């Protein structure tokens, strides 16, 4: 994937967060807490757990549908970052060869169970994190984190970073485009030219920081970026959080999936 595409992807996630749905209107703090609880519950499952993880897909699916987030967009992003988890997990079936079950005559090794478990957990955790941004907006998450106790200096840092990623990425795109137009084949793609380009970008960045600082000073900057939006926890927020906690508790501590499976078998007989 080219970095141009990555750039536009950041913009797309940002645009999705300004939609007007029920999920988007929930308090950012509640969404941050709910997402963290969800992630924690999912990775707390032991390494061979597969079946009990399946019901947890309800959470991303509900967020995607109620928040009107395109499924394919999220799936593509999940796929994009999957190589590391796959690389580390793919050895499990070959290293952990004890047979745990025989299904339709095919022996299932413990390693393939744990690999499958890693894949499920990976999809769940990554999509939950992406959906948090897609339904909350990055500044929303930042201000929520500040209210939850993160140092305001770090929150300002995040907000600045986010604001200037777009500006500097455009600058970097212009620089690469200029280089590509002046170089043929492998010429100009080497480390020497790269260093000069980065050096130039760096000098421009520092100059820009200087200008930003003066512009902010003249607007009354005192070392902090406050949020003007007043946030209040409403009844719907509390209801959302309660439902989330109950959902997580039920599916973490009771083996609901197998119960349903047994029920279905019983009905079929």
């Amino acid at each position: 994937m080219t970095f141009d595409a990555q750039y536009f992807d950041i913009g797309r996630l940002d645009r999705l967060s300004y939609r007007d749905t029920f999920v988007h209107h929930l308090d950012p703090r509640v969404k941050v807490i709910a997402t963290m609880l969800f992630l924690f519950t999912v990775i707390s499952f032991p390494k061979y757990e597969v079946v009990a993880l399946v019901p947890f897909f309800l959470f991303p699916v509900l967020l995607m549908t109620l928040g009107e987030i395109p499924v394919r967009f999220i799936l593509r992003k999940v796929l994009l970052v999957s190589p590391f988890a796959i690389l580390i997990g793919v050895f499990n079936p070959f290293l952990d060869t004890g047979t745990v079950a025989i299904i339709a005559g095919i022996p299932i090794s413990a390693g393939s169970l744990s690999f499958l478990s890693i894949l499920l957990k990976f999809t769940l955790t990554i999509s939950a994190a992406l959906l948090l941004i897609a339904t909350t907006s990055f500044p929303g998450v930042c201000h929520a984190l500040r209210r939850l106790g993160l140092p305001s200096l770090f929150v300002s840092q995040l907000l600045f970073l986010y604001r200037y990623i777009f500006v500097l990425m455009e600058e970097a795109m212009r620089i690469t485009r200029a280089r590509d137009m002046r170089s043929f084949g492998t010429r100009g793609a080497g480390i020497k030219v790269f260093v000069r380009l980065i050096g130039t970008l760096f000098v421009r960045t520092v100059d820009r920081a200087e200008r930003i600082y003066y512009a902010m000073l003249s607007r009354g900057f005192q070392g902090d970026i406050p949020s003007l939006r007043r946030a209040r926890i409403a009844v719907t927020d509390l209801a959302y959080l309660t439902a989330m906690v109950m959902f997580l508790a039920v599916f973490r501590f009771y083996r609901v999936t197998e119960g349903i499976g047994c029920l279905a078998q019983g009905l079929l007989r």
Partner: protein
Amino acid sequence: MHMADALLSPAVGMTLWAGTAAVGGYASKKLKERIDDRTIPLMGVLGAFIFASQMINFTIPGTGSSGHLGGGMILAIILGPHAAFLVMASVLTVQALFFADGGLLALGCNIWNLGFYPCYLVYPLLYKPLIGESQNPGRIVAVSLVSAVAVLQLGAFSVVLETLLSGKSELPFGAFLLLMQPIHLAIGIIEGFVTAAIINHVRSARPEILDGIAASRPLGAGISLKKVMITFVVLAVVTGGVLSWFASTHPNGLEWSIEKVTGKGELPEQEHGTAPVLKGIQEKTAFLPDYGFKPAGNEPKKEKMAPAWPGIEAGTSAAGIIGAAIVLGLILLIGVGIRSFRGRDA
């Protein structure tokens, strides 16, 4: 390389988060004491610079593959350890949220691996003493090279340790180490060259920039090694303590997980609530013979193949698979249902 949520156990993830939060709090406290307002926008914009610089690729000599700047070391050199740590943390946070690189629980590990080592270990203990007051370009190259290699080796080693302690991967320690360390040696060498080259380029083109940043940051030069060491030792002790406490609560992780997998060793809370209902259903359906997929003839073979897995009932796994399929179907149905309902509304 970024750690991923899926490879992490809660104990390891939370421990690293605790360490990262402690260092982050320390960094912002230190920075707040002596910060120049001017540094705040500079830090933000430099974080964005790290992202933007990753868009410009270069061809690695001799291989034809392309590389880009990682960033920890160059930030530490330019901004000093405290500011650099916060910038690195913010860069990794944005990467976790927007590119889904890593994950939110693994973010603690990633900030530790890619932020703590360059800023609080390699910069004060290796880079600073080796470089001294020198501005000699050759020396900058040599020292940056050593530092960047050290940073990446430490980071890669941490990834190995964190993965192994989490116990989700079956890779043996040695093989995993052999997989990670050489790759990161190569990456470290490239990172070192690029870092040094950028510093040298900026120094020759606009020397006042580096000096100006250094002057507006009185904390970088005066950082006391002793304090850093003490903090590190305290953190290590705390981390070790927490880890071993977690380790002792689950003395035998494997047995515990086997119990979970086979559905034995149920939790005591299941005496009441929905569990007995489901259990009742399970018991009612379980007397039905041969509902499992397992052909009866395979039984002795299974016993022979897996003596370490007692009490495995194909019935349980069959129920699990059927249940999973039904649940998945239901979830999809809910998703599609809501979507089509909405579509009709609009």
